[in-house]
């Protein structure tokens, strides 16, 4: 036995550090996580002396669920492999969905184009040049039927990334499923329907905050009643992180958004147990492996405590935080794009080790364009290799008890609680957004990150280290402009062939309901059934509620 090994036992961490760190200079002055947290060279039991392992960490499947929602983890059921996809027309995207399902994807996730995200029809002049480019164009119930042609909506769970017009898109889905003989009660999947993070980060908002929050509430309450297997909201930190937030702020702002939605729904008479059971979350799986695992564990613990301590929820279903994870788009590089497969792989590993319920892995070409079929296939295969070959899905929460990961988990819990208090003191999330508080946090860390990259303090292979001028370009997806033009023309054509009387009556009913505080969903479903488009539904409400414009500042 060496002297070092003999000495290791009785020394405290601090003594060890003084002795060892004096021996050789380190590569850097400080080692930090991707979010800027300083990391010690060694963690020992001393570092978690303040953590109550039984109460804070416990066992998987038990409150506060730090170690996971299910006692047997992925041993009973793997995570859902849900690849976010959509480009061009509904028919082109349908072909990609069928391909993904044949290739082993176990869920679908719809990426809509910018006009759809902004509640504009493809033949709206404001949509010119953007139809089908960043996702699929869906304007009417007919488009929705085409999108899911040959896919059993009662069997395959479908996630929809849509926010400002989430209520309208959900109405189109309900109407489309109905035409196929699938009742709302049979629908499984998730609607993103998280407008607060749009105001905070992604900026695809339409209406001002108040009516926007009312739409979110209406969707949730309608869904609790009519489609109890559906998740009517996915409270999302993903976009907050992509916009430049740290792991800490991603966590805090997401949960603070969750608090705002729960308050809205409870104020409208929702039952806290039923509501809590149908909330879902969406986090980023970013590059700092350990900090991300800790973030997912901290999120579960914090949300369980919030649901029980703040809102009085008792059941495990209502206190448990379920989440989808997506690997980080912003971490991908246009330089040496093949390297992105490696980034995506270890990011996906952190999501699995953190207990994600479903996962999207990014394709290697996403810093350049929407993914080709080959790139999308490799992204899915990455998940399958992790699921079937890596051994990650065997033990439940294998990092539980790691002195380092438990320390990080506890720090993230404490920091996020402090941030949530700041939001509370600002008057809640809507008020905080109006004061520009979360936007400032994000702008600060986004700028700091970029400066660190430029100074070489943050190393990115292919960008500021290990550059290669021989970088070979890869093939990228081209959008079929002719197919998109035909789709635009068809949208106008369908508009002319509708029953004008029914369209008018549906829109009048929508306006009438919107003026009251009644739930707008039945009126929207009625619009969808009668061929009213997303642009028309949003247009009627734009006239009534106006549009939101963010105060400009840098």
């Amino acid at each position, binding site marked *: 036995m060496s002297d070092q090994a003999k000495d290791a036992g009785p020394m405290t961490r601090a003594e060890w550090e003084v002795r060892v760190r004096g021996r050789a200079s380190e590569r850097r002055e400080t080692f930090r996580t991707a979010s800027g947290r300083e990391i010690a060279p060694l963690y020992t039991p001393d570092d978690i002396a303040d953590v109550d392992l039984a109460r804070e960490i416990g066992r998987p499947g038990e409150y506060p669920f730090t170690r996971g929602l299910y006692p047997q983890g992925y041993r009973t059921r793997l995570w859902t492999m849900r690849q976010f996809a959509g480009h061009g027309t509904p028919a082109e995207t349908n072909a990609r969905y069928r391909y993904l399902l044949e290739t082993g994807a176990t869920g679908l996730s719809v990426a809509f184009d*910018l*006009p759809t*995200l*902004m509640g*504009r029809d493809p033949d709206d002049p*404001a*949509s*010119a*040049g*953007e139809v089908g*480019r*960043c996702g699929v164009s869906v304007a009417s119930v007919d488009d929705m039927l085409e999108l899911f042609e040959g896919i059993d909506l009662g069997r395959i769970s479908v996630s929809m990334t849509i926010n400002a017009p989430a209520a309208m898109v959900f109405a189109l889905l309900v109407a489309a499923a109905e035409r196929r003989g699938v009742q709302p009660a049979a629908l499984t999947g998730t609607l993103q329907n998280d407008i607060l993070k*749009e105001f905070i980060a*992604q*900026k*695809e*908002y339409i209406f001002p905050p108040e009516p926007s929050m009312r739409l979110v509430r209406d969707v949730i309450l309608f869904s609790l009643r009519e489609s109890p297997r559906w998740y009517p909201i996915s409270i999302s930190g993903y976009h907050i992180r*992509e*916009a*430049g937030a740290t792991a800490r702020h991603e966590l805090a702002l997401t949960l603070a958004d969750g608090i705002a939605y729960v308050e809205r729904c409870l104020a409208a008479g929702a039952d806290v147990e039923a509501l809590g059971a149908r909330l879902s979350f969406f986090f980023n799986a970013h590059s700092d492996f350990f900090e991300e695992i800790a973030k997912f564990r901290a999120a579960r613990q914090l949300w369980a405590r919030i649901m029980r301590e703040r809102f009085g929820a008792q059941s495990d279903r209502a206190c448990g935080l379920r989440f989808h994870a997506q690997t980080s788009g*912003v971490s991908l*590089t*246009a*330089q040496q794009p093949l390297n992105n497969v490696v980034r995506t792989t270890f990011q996906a590993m952190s999501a699995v080790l953190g207990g994600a319920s479903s996962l999207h892995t990014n394709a290697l070409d996403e*810093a*350049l*364009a929407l993914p080709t079929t080959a790139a999308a296939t490799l992204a899915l295969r990455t998940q399958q290799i992790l699921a079937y070959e890596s051994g990650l899905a065997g033990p439940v929460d294998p990092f539980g008890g790691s002195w380092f990961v438990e320390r990080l988990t506890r720090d993230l819990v404490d920091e996020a609680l402090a941030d949530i208090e700041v939001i509370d003191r600002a008057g809640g999330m809507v008020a905080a957004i109006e004061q520009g508080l979360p936007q400032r946090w994000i*702008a600060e860390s*986004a*700028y700091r990150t*970029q400066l660190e*990259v*430029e100074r070489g303090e943050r190393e990115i292979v*292919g*960008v*500021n280290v290990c550059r290669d001028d021989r970088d070979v*370009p890869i093939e*990228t997806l081209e*959008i079929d402009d002719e197919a998109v033009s035909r789709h635009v023309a068809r949208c106008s054509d369908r508009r002319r062939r509708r029953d004008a009387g029914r369209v008018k009556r549906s829109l009048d009913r929508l306006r009438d309901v919107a003026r009251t505080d009644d739930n707008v969903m039945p009126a929207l479903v009625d619009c969808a059934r009668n061929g009213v488009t997303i642009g028309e539904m949003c247009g009627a409400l734009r006239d009534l509620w106006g549009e939101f*414009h*963010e105060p*400009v*500042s*840098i």
Partner: protein
Amino acid sequence: MHGRFMTKTRVIIAKPGLDGHDRGARVIARALRDAGMEVIYTGLRQTPEQIAAAALQEDADVVGLSILSGAHMHICPRLMDELRARGLDHVVVLVGGIIPDADVPKLKALGIREVFQPGTPMQEIVDFIRRAVEPRAETV
């Protein structure tokens, strides 16, 4: 106003189209401001017409567009027309964002002075603007 070289370089940062991803636009705006330039950020969803009008009103030396949505071949020709219609041919127009290599020469043929693709250091953009604008300013 006497001697433009006495004044700061004036840059408009604009986000045209429907996209709301403004991380890049905001980071660049801040970097240019920290480099001593006068930066006007237009905010989201500006039409080419609104951007050209802002360039005229603000007496801009540079217009920087942030486009990530793939709509650049639709937006850029319209912006260049709007600038020309206002006699703003001297304004240096730059594009940053997700622009495929194949589109770079097409954008330059429209009169876009430079295209900055993902991973470009902010300092490179600062240096480019200094080289592009300052010689002109000194001769006025």
